């Protein structure tokens, strides 16, 4: 992976997003500027309704801004057609969902290899790589199991392996610990942290979970459609202290 510290994998400039709810116009984002460097672990924090999810979907190429630009790897996503967007989702971005979203009818291994199939990898290669990835998340002996035969934490591990399938530059994790208990959630967080460090994958996660803050390189606080503050890790311990005091 290219270790260029000046290179921003995600660049968001002056983005607004307006939703039409019946006759009412709701502005979910009111002008966001954000730059995310390669290999960072970023947490986007904010109460629900703050525009956090909207921003998150925008970064993931799942939604297009009303005004402003979103660049992923220096490519303006508004310029991409359906084919290129699909390519971007397949090769550049790995998604991890709160509800795991494994495909229920497929085994763990098939879930991991599906994105590789889309990327045009042959059956044998993808099986081998799929097994390697499952080994990485500690589930190599359960590769023949269906999602319904796995626990929540195990399903999320499979989802992490699937997100890594095509060696993406970015992993987007939407509340990855939201449906997990405390220890399992911590395991997933540590797994993500290790991946970001060892593979130089940029990890962007939307979360309510304060456990995530400890491992984040940067925390972006969203409030009311704007960036409230961006904190680096060194400033962070202080504010966590404050939060802990309050509780």
């Amino acid at each position, binding site marked *: *992976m*290219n270790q260029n510290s000046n*290179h921003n994998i995600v660049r968001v400039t002056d983005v607004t997003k307006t939703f039409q709810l019946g006759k009412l116009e709701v502005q979910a984002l009111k002008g966001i500027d954000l730059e995310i460097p390669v290999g960072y672990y970023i947490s986007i924090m904010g109460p629900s309704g703050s525009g956090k*999810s909207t921003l998150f*979907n925008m970064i*993931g190429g*799942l*939604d297009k801004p009303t005004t402003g630009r979103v660049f992923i*790897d*220096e*490519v303006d996503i508004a310029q*991409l057609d*359906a*084919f*290129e967007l*699909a*390519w971007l*989702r*397949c*090769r550049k971005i790995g*998604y991890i*969902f*709160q*509800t795991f*979203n*494994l*495909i*229920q*009818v*497929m085994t763990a291994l098939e879930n991991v290899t*599906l*994105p590789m*199939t*889309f*990327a*045009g*990898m042959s059956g044998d290669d993808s099986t081998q*790589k799929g097994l390697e990835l499952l080994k990485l998340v500690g589930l190599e002996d359960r590769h023949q199991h269906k999602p319904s035969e796995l626990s929540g934490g195990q399903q999320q591990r499979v989802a992490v392996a*699937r997100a890594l*399938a*095509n*060696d993406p530059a970015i992993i987007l994790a*939407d509340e990855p610990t*939201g449906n997990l208990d405390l220890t399992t959630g911590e395991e997933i967080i540590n797994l993500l942290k290790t991946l970001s460090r060892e593979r130089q994958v940029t990890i962007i996660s939307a979360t309510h979970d304060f456990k995530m803050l400890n491992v984040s390189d940067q925390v972006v606080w969203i409030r009311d459609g704007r960036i409230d503050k961006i904190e680096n890790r060194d400033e962070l311990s202080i504010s966590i202290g404050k939060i802990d005091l309050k509780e």
Partner: protein
Amino acid sequence: MIADSQPSSSMEPVNRLVVLPFRKALEIAFKSIQVRFFRSLITTLSLILAVAFLSFVNVGTDVADGMLAADQPHLRQVLIQAGYDIGAEDTSVASTAKQRWIVILSLLVCVVGIVNAQLMAVTERFREIGTMKCLGALDRFVLRLFVLEAGMQGLAGGTVGALAGALFSLINSTLGFGWLALSHVSWPEVALSVIASIGVGFLLSLLGVLYPAALAARMQPVEAMRVEQ
């Protein structure tokens, strides 16, 4: 392993790189039916019944045609007694307008049933479809999976229905006219009727899935992010 490390600002050469090979699609569609076997069975059941009815009527006509072609006056009498409307010069038994209407109606009801069942299936699988799209699936992949599934269901349901319908029709004729009826049957005609019925079943299944599949294919990947099930 793929070393795709360069920041690719040029997207041109990658245009063909999102693929779903036909065999893989077939495999996924087959597994999908297998796993949801009971659900698929119900979707297919209305098709089986409609196709069986079609096949029953057609094969019944074939049997009567065979008896008529044997050119024996007493067989002609038997047919007329059984309610067939045959003129003195007729050499084949045309199905009556009423019969045709009932068959067409049953096929229509069947298509509506399939559309209904497939719409339910699409709704149930919204998240799965959204997830696939997040993993890089194109609209046409989703469309292909649904059409393949429906095609397989159509072939299987059509075959079962057509054979069952033909069998019942033959049994029914035997009970009505005695063994004599079977000795005059033109088997190629019966086979043709069965194959035609299978074909109709296959087409109806595809017809029924078109709208639900298009709906699924157009779905936005962001749906996969929604938490409510």
